[in-house]
């Protein structure tokens, strides 16, 4: 579904990703794990078009999407839930959802999508008139995911969805990711928390210093946990 090859990307003259290649099949949950500063967020931002890559190609459903602006990539069906949730704090929950469906001009379809979201997140319906900044961290994370789902994406990119959340809430988010997969959504999950990520994903890539250090099925990688710690510490394997 998504095919990245030889991707070089970064900020201005600074190169963060060095010729990275990976692929994701339809219906998979693929984890990208790695230490802080490995380039995980840069990878996601490059996929959605917030950053223009210096080199390499990104194919989504056989269409080239590298160097396309975010609105184009979103319209093709890739939505990103950014790191740190980043809900629009001064906007109400409902306004946040409306922003998520910014490209949808048909108001009846928008209404239907909001109903679907409220089924999935009853909490958000209860609080739809509330300013998002007043929600708890867990609720904000739900809103950030709900907002991304408003565009009816085919593929969802999640950047550290468990960051800063209490363990109980993390469970809720994991259940949610599982149920989204059952609905046929393809998911890239970026995490620092290795075990959580590997437990719910099919395959995983270990990203260190802007390059893929290891990859394989999630169960395989869970078994070689020791080697992964080495990878995190930056030792040559």
């Amino acid at each position: 579904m998504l095919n990245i090859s030889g991707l070089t990307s970064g900020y201005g003259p600074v190169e963060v990703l060095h010729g990275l290649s990976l692929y994701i099949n339809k219906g998979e949950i693929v984890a990208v794990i790695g230490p802080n500063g490995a380039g995980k967020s840069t990878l996601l931002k490059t996929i959605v078009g917030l950053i223009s890559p210096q080199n390499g190609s990104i194919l989504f459903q056989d269409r080239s999407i590298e160097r396309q602006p975010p609105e184009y990539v979103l319209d093709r069906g890739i939505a990103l839930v950014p790191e740190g949730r980043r809900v629009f704090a001064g906007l109400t929950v409902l306004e946040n959802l409306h922003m998520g469906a910014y490209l949808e001009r048909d108001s009846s379809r928008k209404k239907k999508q909001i109903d679907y979201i409220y089924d999935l997140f009853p909490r958000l319906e209860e609080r739809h008139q509330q300013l998002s900044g007043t929600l708890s961290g867990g609720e904000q994370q739900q809103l950030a995911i709900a907002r991304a789902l408003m565009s009816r994406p085919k593929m969802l990119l999640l950047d550290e969805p468990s960051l800063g959340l209490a363990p109980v809430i993390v469970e809720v988010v994991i259940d949610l990711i599982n149920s989204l997969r059952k609905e046929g959504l393809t998911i890239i999950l970026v995490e620092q928390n290795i075990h959580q990520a590997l437990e719910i994903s099919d395959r995983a890539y270990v990203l260190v210093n802007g390059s893929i250090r290891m990859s394989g099925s999630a169960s395989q990688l869970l078994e070689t946990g020791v080697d992964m710690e080495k990878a995190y510490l930056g030792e040559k394997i």
Partner: protein
Amino acid sequence: MTIEVAVQQLINALSLGSLYALLALGLGMVYSVLGMLNFAYGELLTVCGYTMFLLILIGVPFPVAGLVGLGMAIGVSLLIERLVFRPLRGASFISLLFASFAASVIIQNLIKQLISKRPKVIPVPEVFDQMINIGPFQINVLSLIILLVGLVTLAGLVAFLQKTRWGLAIRAAAEDFEVTRLMGAKANRVIALSFALSGFVAGVAGVLWLSRRGAVSPTMGFIPILKAFIAIVIGGLGSLKGAVMGGFLLAFIEVALMVMLPTRAVPFTDAFALMIVVVILYMRPEGLISIKTGS
């Protein structure tokens, strides 16, 4: 102070406040979306003023000249976005700051060269200076016009920002520009829209400002941008609600000082007003409305 005088001063304060609120909203609109002050903002009022001056000179009636002036302010605002800000997208704060200063200086000097360095009088309709009686109160017609036009424009803008898809995108962009792009809003379009709205507000404020002053000069944009800047700082940089509140608060402070200060101290009204602003900022460094908490 009699109740009559108090009511008249209250109208004055509200009238000046709606003018300042407009000025602040126009400057704050671009700031909140772009994170950058447009220092050529004051020149939008100047452009509006000189357009009116030239049109009235050739016999165009005042209201028509005002509408064309308003259109020019929008046009020049969009032009500044296109020629100054868009080519420098992603450039550093300092580059943008100098570029918009440069735009301001260029416009001022164009007017000096093409028209005149000296102030020019604009004949405003005589009715502006008259007083009307509402019950026991004598109220200046112009104050009332400014108040009404100001409030209607503010209400229109608030409705636009609250009720339309584009307005929602502007408010979202004011909070987080990158995430707004992630939602599918085109960056250039949102920014251009904020400049168009900014120009519109500057145009309306320009017509009202001129009606008060009755004259144009190449540097006439300085005081309005200064007032707008003070208002958005009091209100909380980056908050549109704060900009409006800051505008009204600044006007109330100024009018109150003019009423209460002894005659000999009145020329120093601005100094006293700024001192009060410093005290407000000392107590609330983030301004009245903090964009971090949104309250």
